[in-house]
């Protein structure tokens, strides 16, 4: 008979060795500015624990790998795709459990070539989110293992969330 009663109370997560301990937002910004001086620009601290930055789309794979391995951002929360008049923006929200930070990385792509590198080899949770962005918005993710439609039927030819699709 398994144990009864209340579950374990809040456990301390093991602090990973040689990460930046308890990085407040400034330390994060400084670390990113040192590692990727041209690629990541435009830092703003929106709220406590919430940093926004702009990312050059050619450096996505390296930057994300650096974020996951060196800075301890283990969890990719959301990948959104927004279409403006002259560009597509792809927004990554990445969370660090240990340091309790949320980083919002915004990437731009030109309107006629909406493609970025896939991060699904870095975070497995990105797999289906990228498929959804491809399905509904038409963003191509290079290097994705299985870029197929996920929510709409497989033989659909439109990308419904685009502004020129009037339904």
């Amino acid at each position, binding site marked *: 008979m398994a144990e009864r009663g209340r579950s374990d*109370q809040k456990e301390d997560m093991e602090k990973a060795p040689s990460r930046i301990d308890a990085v407040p937002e400034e330390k994060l910004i400084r670390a990113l500015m040192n590692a990727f001086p041209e690629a990541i620009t435009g830092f703003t601290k929106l709220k406590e624990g919430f940093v926004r930055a702009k990312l050059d789309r050619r450096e996505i794979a390296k930057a994300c790998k650096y974020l996951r391995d060196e800075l301890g951002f283990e969890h990719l929360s959301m990948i959104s795709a*927004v279409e403006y008049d002259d560009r597509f923006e792809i927004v990554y929200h990445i969370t660090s459990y240990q340091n309790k930070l949320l980083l919002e990385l915004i990437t731009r792509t030109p309107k006629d070539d909406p493609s970025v590198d896939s991060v699904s080899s870095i975070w497995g949770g990105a797999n289906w989110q990228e498929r959804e962005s491809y399905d509904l918005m038409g963003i191509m993710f290079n290097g994705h293992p299985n870029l197929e439609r996920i929510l*709409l039927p497989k033989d659909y030819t439109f990308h419904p969330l685009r502004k020129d699709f009037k339904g």
Partner: protein
Amino acid sequence: MWINMGPQHPMTHGLWNLRVKVDGETIVDAQPEVGYLHRGIEKLCEGKTYPQIIPLADRLCYGSSLTWSHLYCMAVEDLMNVEVPERAEYIRVLTIEMQRIVSHLMWLAAYAGDLGLGVGFVYTMREREVFLDLFQALTGARITYNFPRIGGVAHDLPPNFERDTLRAISYFEGRLKEYEDLFEGSKIFMMRNVGVGILKKEDAINMGVTGPTLRASGVSYDLRKDRPYSVYEEMNFNVVTHKDCDCYARYRVRMDEMWESCQIMKQALKKMPKGKVRIVSPRNAPVGTGLARVEDPRGEGMMYIVGDGTDKPYRVKIRSPIFVTVSAAPKILIGYKVADVVAIMGGLDMCIGETDR
């Protein structure tokens, strides 16, 4: 041999398809397929004004609808920079925790029914009725409430609501103990759950799994404690984790979460100040973005809203916790028997409304 479990199947709660490749009775590969319930809510939102989207957000996940309309209102308040009065925040916390209990009871009913214990189904649905009656007194509806508003909640609590809620909570806490005995005292239930469907900690974090499934794998991350929103900083409660990563752990985490929700509700009722419950929000949103995250009963829900100066949103992006958790299903399923699919997928608490949006 590939077997299709679904889309029409009594086990799959909601409309999705699970293709499993079996070798005898052992599962070798699994491919979940979703998208049967896609309603295009994100596109629908772009044609409606901000208050008109609240009932639409309710219908995202009909199992725990208040969480999603609350999430939407929080995101819009972040976009418009609107500050919510304190009494409204307390009412929101009270109703969210009640919604969490209702959602977990629904999960427990379906879980017990799938495992063959019909009595479990009927008894938990009966307890759920108590809370649905409270919701009906408060909002007028039983499942999709349309209760939060941008800038507060729709109206104040009805008379005698505190007395009824406290009565319901004390009745329910006794029943919770009975259910623990009913389920855990049965050796067969333990045999079907202990050691089944192990999801290791690193896999869970990497695949983006959040919510009770993550906490059952030993990671103590709860948005109510780690990034408190609303008035959760004032509330005194524990984050429930469990160190075995199997179905029993997920069951245990949810049972304890129900108990913790009862405590939060009692505190919210005691600390609620008097005051307004709603302020008028502006009609047009500024140009910019708003982001909100909540701890949905199933995981981490997020909404990202882009405003463009008019009274309709430019883009609404919704993160559904179950969408990401289901993509981790192959990792959990491989190596177990076909008969375990029910226990494992039931333990993940699927709600297809939010998966397919």
